[in-house]
């Protein structure tokens, strides 16, 4: 917890530098067909109250039955976080009244969670990485949704979400800046998506964060923290932390003290505001749910799940570096999404890994970003991009033509080889044709020829003219060689 203070991360107050300390509780909706304790479907977007079983509605005498798939997903996630899997865990009731909480309690795990301590390796933009400790992961039920905008004098309740499984992933207070916090959530989301245990869709509320923020003078003990509830985008997480840290610093520098409380972030106003104080905090009266036996399974069950896990981003990144000779940065970009990594691997297979990475990152990702599309929506398939790279390697087209070809494939589709054939994009390697073009240029520009003999960098101008004259199809190596000999440049 008391890692050396990195001065770059400190926030400048009016009087002092301050260190911000952040811990997070991420609520990640488990990817499963049915709910944590009932057979009702979890599909998003149904009519209100269409996906509600008798258990979800807490009808008298109804009992929860654990959904084994949700347990397996929690274990997979724990394994992905390099965490201790607890072979025995206990479901507790967290008691409070709210109209969207039909049972009057949430079934959660309090003292004995299914997953214990783990860690997440987080890469930062400057090439540095940090390890963030995971304290625990537990399973719990989501609540329903109160709708306050449907009637002037009543609130409605939609129980479709009621009972859907959530994983609450609690980090240690190991984060020291909003950037680190954003990078942590991004990485965690990547891991969950690789594992297929949570889709990470923050717009649908399938991943949301409670952010604990405190500030202190470097080297001092932890300050009083405030919890910012339910922040639902990575950008807002960053903004909420900055806003809250500055609020706390202003209070402390004014000689005030921080009250431990729960706050809400208002992205519109760019402020956090108090939701409830420590005194108003609920007494949840946790106790073991007597309807459910302790959750117990064998190590062999965990081992079976571990055997079925996909390659995770850290391992994949290391492999891309060693197998394809990529830079750590490029490898990191490629593994950020499992689909991108898969795409890259399909392109790189049997080809030059670095060339493939350049094309995927610079051309493909660049174009996708420009259009706000994800890798799943790419119009250029890995096979198509691979063919373009092959054509360059074979000397059939130049790099410049290849970019034009990429554009054609992007907009019109088709087999790159056939397009090259049909549209005459083939590189000219016939030195006769190139020579003729060069001779014509030399003849028309005697002054430039004289200058070039004194200033060999003018060669570039001749190359440009030659390419222009040949419609960009001339083989650049051949052009260079011919120009040098004809101009007498060494």
């Amino acid at each position: 917890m008391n890692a050396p203070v990195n001065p770059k991360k400190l926030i400048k107050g009016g009087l002092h530098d301050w260190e911000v300390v952040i811990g997070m509780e991420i609520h990640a909706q488990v990817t499963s067909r049915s709910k944590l304790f009932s057979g009702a479907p979890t599909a998003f977007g149904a009519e209100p109250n269409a996906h509600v079983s008798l258990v979800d509605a807490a009808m008298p005498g109804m009992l929860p039955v654990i959904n084994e798939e949700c347990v397996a997903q929690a274990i997979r996630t724990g394994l992905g976080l390099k965490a201790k899997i607890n072979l025995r865990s206990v479901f507790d009731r967290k008691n409070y009244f709210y109209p969207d909480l039909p049972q009057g309690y949430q079934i959660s795990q309090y003292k004995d969670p299914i997953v214990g301590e783990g860690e997440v390796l987080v890469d930062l933009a400057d090439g540095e990485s940090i390890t963030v400790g995971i304290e625990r992961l537990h399973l719990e039920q989501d609540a329903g949704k109160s709708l306050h905008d449907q009637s002037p004098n009543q609130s409605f309740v939609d129980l479709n979400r009621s009972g859907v499984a959530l994983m609450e992933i609690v980090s240690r207070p190991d984060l020291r800046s909003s950037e680190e916090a954003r990078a942590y959530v991004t990485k965690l989301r990547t891991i969950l998506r690789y594992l297929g245990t949570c889709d990470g869709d923050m717009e649908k509320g399938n991943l949301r964060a409670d952010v604990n923020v405190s500030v202190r003078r470097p080297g001092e003990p932890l300050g009083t923290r405030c919890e910012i509830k339910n922040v639902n985008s990575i950008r807002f997480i960053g903004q909420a932390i900055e806003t809250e840290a500055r609020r706390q610093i202003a209070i402390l520098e004014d000689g005030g003290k921080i009250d431990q409380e729960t706050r809400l972030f208002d992205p519109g106003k760019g402020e956090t505001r108090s939701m409830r104080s420590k005194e108003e905090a609920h007494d949840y009266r946790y106790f073991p749910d007597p309807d459910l036996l302790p959750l117990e399974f064998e190590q062999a069950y965990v081992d079976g799940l571990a055997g079925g896990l996909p390659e995770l981003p850290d391992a994949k990144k290391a492999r891309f570096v060693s197998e394809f000779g990529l830079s750590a940065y490029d490898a990191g970009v490629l593994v950020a999404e499992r689909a991108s990594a898969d795409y890259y691997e399909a392109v790189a297979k049997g080809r030059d890994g670095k060339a493939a990475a350049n094309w995927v990152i610079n051309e493909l990702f660049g174009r996708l970003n420009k259009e706000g599309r994800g890798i799943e929506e790419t119009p250029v398939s890995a096979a198509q991009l691979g063919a373009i790279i092959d054509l360059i390697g074979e000397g059939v087209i130049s790099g410049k033509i290849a970019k034009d070809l990429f554009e054609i494939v992007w907009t019109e589709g088709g087999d790159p080889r056939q397009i090259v054939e049909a549209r005459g994009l083939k590189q000219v390697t016939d030195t006769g044709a190139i020579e003729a073009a060069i001779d014509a240029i030399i003849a028309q520009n005697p002054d430039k020829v004289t200058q070039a003999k004194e200033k060999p960098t003018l060669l570039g101008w001749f190359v440009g003219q030659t390419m222009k004259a040949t419609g960009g199809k001339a083989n650049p190596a051949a052009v260079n060689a011919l120009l040098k000999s004809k101009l007498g440049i060494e």
Partner: protein
Amino acid sequence: MTELNELTLAEARDGLRAKDFSARELAQAHIAALEKARALNAYLLETPDRALAMAEVSDAKIAKGEGRPLEGLPLGIKDLFCTHGVVTTAGSKILEGFEPHYESAVTHNLWRDGAVMLGKLNLDEFAMGSSNETSAYGNVISPWRRNGSDAPIVPGGSSGGSAAAVAAHLCLGATATDTGGSIRQPAAFTGTVGIKPTYGRCSRWGTVAFASSLDQAGPIARTVRDCAILLGSMAGPDARDTTCVDLPVPDFEAAVSRGVKGLTIGIPKEYRVDGMPAEIQRLWDQGAEWLRAAGAEIREISLPNTRYALPAYYIVAPAEASSNLARYDGVRYGLRVPGKDIVGMYENTRAAGFGREVKRRIMIGTYVLSAGYYDAYYVRAQKIRTLIKRDFEAVYAAGVDAILTPATPSSAFAIGEKASADPVEMYLNDVFTVTVNMAGLPGIAVPAGLDAQGLPLGLQLIGRPFDEETLFATAQAIEDAAGRMSLPRAWWA
């Protein structure tokens, strides 16, 4: 000839099979009896049309030789079991008019086996009570009276409607539930037989919850054999209740005639509580003597943590109840009393919907689970629970097959006699029965005689986990020795 409703369940079953009478006639005899017995307030809801329709199906099945185990046998259902399309109130205003769209596992099993539903039986509100006086729909009156007195007597609780209806021949048998003695105490008070099986033997699915770790369904009937027959149908695995065990249901009826020869019966010295009436002690000694005479070995045993059971029970049960009853909030079903905001609606609904005893237990439960009190109360009570369980395990490991105790510390009392007093006095009714729930064991109450006032007294047998068979065999030996209780004349009719 005996009226059809005065037959035992086994006799009625055999009579139907022999086609001595029809299921319709049997149902009609019961419908007539319960219509005349409304003064007892045992039934909250009579379902004669349903009973006759079910009886007709039974007659058709019998005619085709397809009779099921309980074919055509009319039963009463404690109003804690949810019944599809039939109002289920749990004895509470908060569920007034509530009509479930599902059938509890236990009643489903009974209808599957051909039983006929006569109606829903009164009970203490949410099964919280020992006299049926906490029902929101008026107390049940026992068919029994003290010698020379017209004072109405309580039938016990919480399954008071079940016990009274069985004793008054208003059904052949009834479903009941037992969280701290709610089957065994009313059975003892009404001269009937009631068994709380091992926790996990019957599914809790669809039964309104009181205290989930203690609640268990069981039958009340007029003979040991009738209870064995009914439990055989009520019990069984159910994947919808994860605390329900995946064990086959033994042939309980066959166990009834096993005898007690060679069994070792324990007599726990800690059950000799201060102030226990001499006649209860005499009855207990008599019971031991009967079993010895029938071939059992009687052994004094010790269950040293018994005295902590009642206080620990009154922490665990209210704690679970306070949470289980949170769902009655006026939002989705049942009573709703408007308020100025959501909290006001909660407060008004729950204030109007719950009775005094239920509120008291919700408050006790909320208190013992609160921050700062949880360790001192709930955690310690759970430790005591473990100790109580160990007491029994030690005794069974030492070769005891079943334990004999009084079922209650007294006979039934008059209505109102304890209602105004310190609630703890009412809670003391459960002193011999709660240990069994705390340990999850099976326990049976069987009539053994009358006290000086002419009211029934019962003995309790406690068994090993999932060994209800030994209880049925032993209880039968007591029933044989004591003779079938002759029930009171129908003063109410």
